[in-house]
């Protein structure tokens, strides 16, 4: 069964928030209505976002690493947020595994958000219904867009290609290969939610170069030997240039 998902590479995410703003821009402009934004330019702003980037510092100074950690709905394969919904507004699509909220059925009881261990759902303050990442379902199937743009807004916006998009149940997809080859993992595996989104861990990219690799000791033809300076009469410019 198809399961669309994002794979987020923590090794290259630079925490620029481009995915956050592009997500907000795309999803606030859609037919489902805008995303709440209270006091956007005042003290205490608060609004609905489907995707947020957090920053963690790992290790003790000075040996620290900064990890930027984007998080949106993980489109769990066994989503605990779906069965608890009393109205059926929360559902998981059979055809591609996307977990969605039907904004016309939701009564805003917040129960699904309690049942999501990842805090991926947010109640919209204006529409008073539950909202969350849709995996840009209104984009990825839009045939009026060129094929290369039928991807989530956040994936297209990411300047470092830290976000990959594809079917995690297809072993040859770009996301499956990335998960397999780079040790992709799921968040909070202890709850058995089986999130479809995966994260790629920090990887050490090191090359070791020894001195003898910079200056060749073994140089039988003396290729890099400095030639003696020719006398001023011995050569003309034509002898040493090739035109």
């Amino acid at each position, binding site marked *: 069964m198809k399961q669309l998902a994002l794979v987020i590479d923590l090794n290259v995410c630079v925490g620029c928030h481009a995915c*956050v703003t592009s997500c907000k821009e795309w999803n606030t402009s859609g037919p489902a209505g805008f995303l709440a934004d209270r006091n956007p330019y005042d003290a205490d702003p608060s609004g609905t976002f489907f995707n947020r980037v957090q920053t963690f*510092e790992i290790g003790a100074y000075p040996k620290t690493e900064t990890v930027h950690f984007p998080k949106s709905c993980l489109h769990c394969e066994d989503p605990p947020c779906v069965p*608890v919904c*009393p109205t059926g507004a929360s559902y998981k699509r059979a055809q591609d595994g996307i977990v969605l909220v039907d904004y016309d059925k939701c009564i805003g009881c917040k129960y699904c958000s309690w049942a999501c261990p990842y*805090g991926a759902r947010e109640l919209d303050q204006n529409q008073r219904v539950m909202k969350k990442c849709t995996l840009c379902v209104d984009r990825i199937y839009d045939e009026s867009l060129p094929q290369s743009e039928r991807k989530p807004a956040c994936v297209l916006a990411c300047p470092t290609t830290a976000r990959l998009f594809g079917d995690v149940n297809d072993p040859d997809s770009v996301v499956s290969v990335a998960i397999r080859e780079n040790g992709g993992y799921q968040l*909070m595996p202890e*709850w058995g939610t089986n999130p479809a989104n995966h994260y790629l*861990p920090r990887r050490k990219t090191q090359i070791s170069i020894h001195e003898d690799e910079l200056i060749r000791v073994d140089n039988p033809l003396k290729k890099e030997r400095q030639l003696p300076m020719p006398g001023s009469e011995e050569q003309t410019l034509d002898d040493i240039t090739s035109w």
Partner: protein
Amino acid sequence: MHPAFSVIFLTTLIGVGQGLFLALYTGQLYSVVNVLPVQDSHSFYGLGSLLTLVFLLAGLVASVFHLGRPERAWRTATRWRSSWLSREVIVLPAFIALTALYGVINYYDLNPVLFSLNGEIHVELSLVVGGVNTVLAFALFFCTAMIYACVKFLQEWATPLTVVNYTLLGSASGFSLATAFAAYTGSGLVAFYAAWAVIITLAAFVTRIASLLRNANIKYKSSLRSAIGIRHSNIQQKSCGFMAGSFNTREYFHGATKRKFRSVKWTFLLLVFPLPVLLIGIGLGTSQAQVFALAFAIQYLGLLAERWFFFAQARHPQNLYYQTA
């Protein structure tokens, strides 16, 4: 979790209603088998049901404030196969309807004897309706508590003790109210209800303490390490992704100081258990209805604090993503 007053009032008010109905029906059952004197069905069971309805409807009104879109509330009855919330939404109106029916039957004395056992025990219509409604009362306790107990990663709630506590605490407050009601209506059941109110309150004390002890020693399955998947012993959050509040910081944090949090715990431990028991004892000694009413009022106030604490104590794993909030 952030305790929502709508849910605090909903769960405590319908708890009183359910408990009061159970008390009325217990009294009726005992009188049928001739253990207790028969009460006047018009004034006692009829008005008692009316009082039950007042609490249930008040709870229903409180619940509306919890919904973002109450006008769509009818939709909540559709997912009873998977959602405990949906089941509660079905059982609650059914319970209200049968309570009303039970009240009407008793108030207008439309109470034909359906059949007799051994020619001695006369089973009346109200007894059958009340029996079915008793099942609904327990089903409602179960559904309400399971809404919380079924969320497995809210580990403070995910225990059978949640169901036991909701049932016992609701019943205790209902029997306390029944004691006061019996005293005001001059019924002979005061001592009977008072005894049960004390017994159930003490039982609830034991199970609530058990859940407090359990929760004090809880081992959380999730940690910041499993939340972000980085196995390092020293992780500090530098930014939660935004500067002011969000749904995530408002909905899952109770925001009270440690002192307030602890004082609420001691408040409810005092108001729900020892004080009402003491007052009911004094009431039995002085035979004053006001003392029983005070016992109920204090216990109900205590239950409000108890429910606040119940919600505030639950630590949602999403809070791991908001270390600095």
